[in-house]
């Protein structure tokens, strides 16, 4: 197993190299540079030229690429031009925010989706099932930003149940219980929105897995053993139906850092998705490249993690 994992990790290297070339090329192909946004009569074009030269933006692409790779290998992903900070620490800060938001979202998502999926699958073709399927189609069809905005207005502003922006109130002292609660409280509304929007997939998957599992021979065996139906669901059907979802967990876990552009922007939450879009807009190359590499790495890691999880939950698939 360890060997396989290491081999897979090694296999990632060429993939990441390819990705880095592609991304670097694309980022540089985008028109504009970090200074385009600064054009005002007060800035001096000559100074901008000078700075570009200093930052090496005028060097040939391969030179820039090699320099970037060299630094990246030493853990230096450069400086964000817009934020005037080390990319690593900037991403670290945002990643933490996004992680908490996504974490709560995913928990909520499973809390909503799993029972619904189970009910729909168990009582297939009942009115309940039809309602759940309808619900899942609806959430699938609603654009993220529409629901986010509606929720923000209704629950944030009209009913004032939740805070309407940011990740934490400024008054609370970091490190206290209130601080943790306050952060959680800020995360809640965006997380609920995120969770509701994400339920479709899980519900549909779980439902059809359960419907499939119900007709399996081993379920018939269990019934012939005299296991009550209720127990058959809990001990046989659900467990087996969760495999694909468990397998997806790898992606979900690494995906936790991806963040959602819409949710983060609308709820004013400083996270990764939003950083990604804004760094594209401001041509903050070092941030773009670092983020893409991080995503790429996470995606590959996710697929590895999924395989590992799958091999743990499903004894039929053991790596080696």
């Amino acid at each position: 197993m360890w060997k396989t994992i290491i081999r897979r990790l090694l296999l990632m290297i060429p993939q990441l190299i390819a990705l880095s070339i592609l991304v670097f090329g694309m980022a540089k192909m985008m028109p504009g540079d970090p200074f385009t946004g600064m054009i005002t009569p007060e800035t001096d074009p000559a100074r901008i030229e000078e700075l570009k030269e200093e930052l090496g933006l005028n060097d040939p692409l391969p030179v820039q690429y090699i320099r970037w790779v060299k630094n990246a290998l030493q853990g230096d992903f450069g400086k964000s031009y817009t934020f005037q900070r080390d990319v690593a620490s900037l991403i670290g800060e945002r990643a933490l925010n996004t992680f908490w938001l996504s974490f709560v979202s995913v928990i909520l998502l499973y809390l909503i989706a799993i029972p619904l999926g189970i009910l729909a699958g168990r009582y297939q073709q009942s009115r309940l099932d039809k309602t759940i399927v309808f619900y899942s189609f609806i959430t699938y069809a609603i654009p993220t930003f529409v629901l986010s905005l509606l929720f923000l207005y209704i629950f944030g502003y009209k009913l004032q149940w939740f805070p309407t922006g940011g990740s934490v109130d400024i008054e609370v002292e970091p490190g206290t219980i209130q601080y943790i609660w306050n952060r959680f409280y800020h995360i809640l509304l965006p997380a609920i929105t995120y969770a509701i929007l994400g339920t479709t997939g899980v519900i549909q998957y779980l439902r059809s897995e359960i419907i499939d599992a119900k007709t399996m021979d081993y379920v018939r065996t269990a019934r012939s053993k005299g296991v009550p139906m209720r127990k058959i669901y809990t001990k046989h059907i659900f467990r087996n139906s969760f495999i694909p979802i468990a397998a997806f967990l790898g992606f979900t876990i690494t995906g936790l850092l991806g963040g959602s552009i819409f949710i983060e922007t609308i709820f004013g939450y400083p996270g990764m998705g939003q950083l990604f879009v804004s760094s594209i807009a401001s041509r903050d190359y070092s941030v773009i490249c670092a983020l893409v590499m991080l995503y790429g790495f996470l995606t590959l890691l996710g697929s590895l993690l999924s395989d590992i999880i799958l091999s743990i939950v499903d004894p039929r698939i053991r790596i080696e």
Partner: protein
Amino acid sequence: MSFMQVVDLKVHYPIRGGFFNSVIDWVYAVDGIDMEFEQGKTYGLVGESGCGKSTTGKALIGLEKITSGKILFEGEDVTKDRKSRTSHFHREVQMIFQDSHSSLNPRKRIADILAEPIRNFLHLPPREEMKKIDELLEIVGMPADSKEKYPHEFSGGQKQRINIARALATNPKLIIADEPVSALDLSVQAQVLNFMKDVQKEFGLTYLFISHDLGVVKHMCDYIYIMYKGRFVECGTKEDIYENPKHLYTKRLLSSIPASTPVGREKRKSARQAFEKVYEKHIHKAFDENGRVYDLIPLSDTHYVSASSKKEIV
């Protein structure tokens, strides 16, 4: 005189693993077998599940890569020819599969199914192609209107007949039949077996009949190979095998066949169980220290048994 020989055929499947996904071990699915086929005879290949019967069949026809060994067809080495799908060899050797249903494409009409080999090998003009199809259907005793139907509209026996018709399209010399009736009901099985014998007589066909049902094999075959772990433990004519089994494994196989009468079953059972004890005790002697089956040793012109030496043969 035999028209086809198989010399020291081996098919090994690699097991990959380790750090660079390199080959760490091999499955010796077929591990050095020799066979010979004569015109108009039926050869049985018997053995327990997973012993390599299907692999042998597939390797002969070119569906599996051969690790080593040679196939001589009409005196020529055709081992390499098998790569080209439309070689002479492929025209002369055909195959019937166990699952009559899954070996017919459910989306194709019978006419198209039968036309496939004709188009690939015979290249007939459309009119003659139709004629040929009608002929084939007649041979296997199916009404002409079956042409327009789809496989699912036929019974298992009928489907297996269509399979046979398709195999016959190129006028082959040898048909490899991989468990052609194991999936069929008793009465349908009888139908197909009868029919196979009929066409054999008519066209002078040779069959390689793969099965684990010793009753069927006895009914069909002239010569029988008993396979165990990718090698032959015994081969000989039907009489050699059924009346004079020499290898312990052959004997065990024979003793396991359920009888067709309830009379004396208690006796049979105790005999069987007694034999099982003997088998367990002595079977290790039948193989070398690596568990590999010994080479065959001739007992008579037709009868061969695997043993470390002639003395060992009981």
